[in-house]
């Protein structure tokens, strides 16, 4: 029993194994955190501390000496949309928006359903309405009618309007089963996602409006403006990228499908 009285770590086999394991760990650490990172062709992995921090994934700037970014032109959308942008609104927001909306009824209809070539707003995504209103205010989107109307409104006013129109009943969405290919499938080989993958039907995306039952003339004008690059308030060219690849026939098919019955 004498060999059991020794503490376990002094046992030759146990102690030897532990020592070997510790050396292996150290060796692997040196390989993974110092040797291999230092072998990369990147100044920021050179030196022991840099190599260890880089391999451990410490966040830092990886492009120190690049030419400075170009200034942002004035007519670019500055709206920041997150899922929370419109969700923390004060109580009464919809009511205040309803009062402010009295100025809008002439074109957008008494209850947000337009009878002219202006878009219907009833049940529209609040985030989309807010973004467009802000863009009219900053000049990122231009309209001789809308710009003066929103010029003096506060940010909260815009949010209230967006909440009000978002709360109104929306026209029922159409069945995608009858949709033309451009709406239901897009054209993946030509870099065109289906309209329905952002604008409802399949899925929706924050900031992308519903298009169902919008006036045909409005839809056509906006799609053409995106495809010609004359409307540029889509963040990072999101919609211009798509519209620029669409053929005139596809634009017409999408307009026909989404356009209201009038």
């Amino acid at each position: 029993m004498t060999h059991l009285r020794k503490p376990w770590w002094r046992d030759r086999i146990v102690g030897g194994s532990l020592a070997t394991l510790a050396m292996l760990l150290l060796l692997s650490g040196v390989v993974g955190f110092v040797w291999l990172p230092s072998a990369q062709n990147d100044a920021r992995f050179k030196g022991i501390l840099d190599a260890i921090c880089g391999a451990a994934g410490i966040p830092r700037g990886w492009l120190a000496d690049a030419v400075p970014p170009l200034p942002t032109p004035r007519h670019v959308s500055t709206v920041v949309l997150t899922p929370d942008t419109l969700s923390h609104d004060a109580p009464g927001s919809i009511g205040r928006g309803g009062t402010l909306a009295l100025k809008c009824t002439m074109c957008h209809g008494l209850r947000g359903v337009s009878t002219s070539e202006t878009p219907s707003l009833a049940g529209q995504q609040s985030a989309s309405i807010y973004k467009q209103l802000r863009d009219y205010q900053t000049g990122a989107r231009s309209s001789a009618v809308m710009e003066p109307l929103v010029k003096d409104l506060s940010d909260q006013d815009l949010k209230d309007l967006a909440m009000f129109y978002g709360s109104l009943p929306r026209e029922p969405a159409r069945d995608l089963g009858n949709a033309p290919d451009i709406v239901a499938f897009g054209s993946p080989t030509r870099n065109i996602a289906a309209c329905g993958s952002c604008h409802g039907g399949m899925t929706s995306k924050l900031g992308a409006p519903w298009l169902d039952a919008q006036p045909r003339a409005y839809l056509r004008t906006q799609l053409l403006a995106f495809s010609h690059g004359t409307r540029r308030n889509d963040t990072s060219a999101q919609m211009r990228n798509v519209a620029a690849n669409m053929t005139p026939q596809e634009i017409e098919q999408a307009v026909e499908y989404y356009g209201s019955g009038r």
Partner: protein
Amino acid sequence: MPQPASESPSHSDVAARAERRWAIVMLGIIALLVAMVVFTGLHWAMMPPSRVETVDPATLQLSGEFTEANLGSAVEPDGSVTVRIVGQQYSFTPQCIVVPAGTPVTFRVTSADVIHGLMIMGTNINSMIEPGFISTFKTTFDKPGDHQMPCHEFCGTGHQAMWANVKVVEPSAFTQLADHARRLTCDL
């Protein structure tokens, strides 16, 4: 008093020898694995880059290097090229990326919404594009040519339509382009 069989010295010697052999085999396996990591890391550049850098995905368009005006290829003072790309549902901006052959190129890519991916076909360039992080990777294209650059990380219902073109041109042609614009793309 007779000893129990398991405590006889000859038996514990046998156990010790067996354990030592096991330990040597295990050590050998670990050493082999580490050696494989070293080999692939040094010769195949399989070491994960680990260039962690954060960015706010909601405000990319406002300031910093991912504003719309700053996307595309920029020529650096040392002659290398930095390409900045934003991935979003369901396209890359710019949609046509132009770079010179035989020149060090640094890609800086981020996402404005969900996780995307990027691979340049015919090369070993392959990276995830995560919102909140900037993916940085360096390469040199050895010859001119056209490559497709699909998103290879399922990003939503329009994923299959998300791809861009990478056009590698002669350095002289690139220089000519660079005389006319400070950020280059081959978008139509």
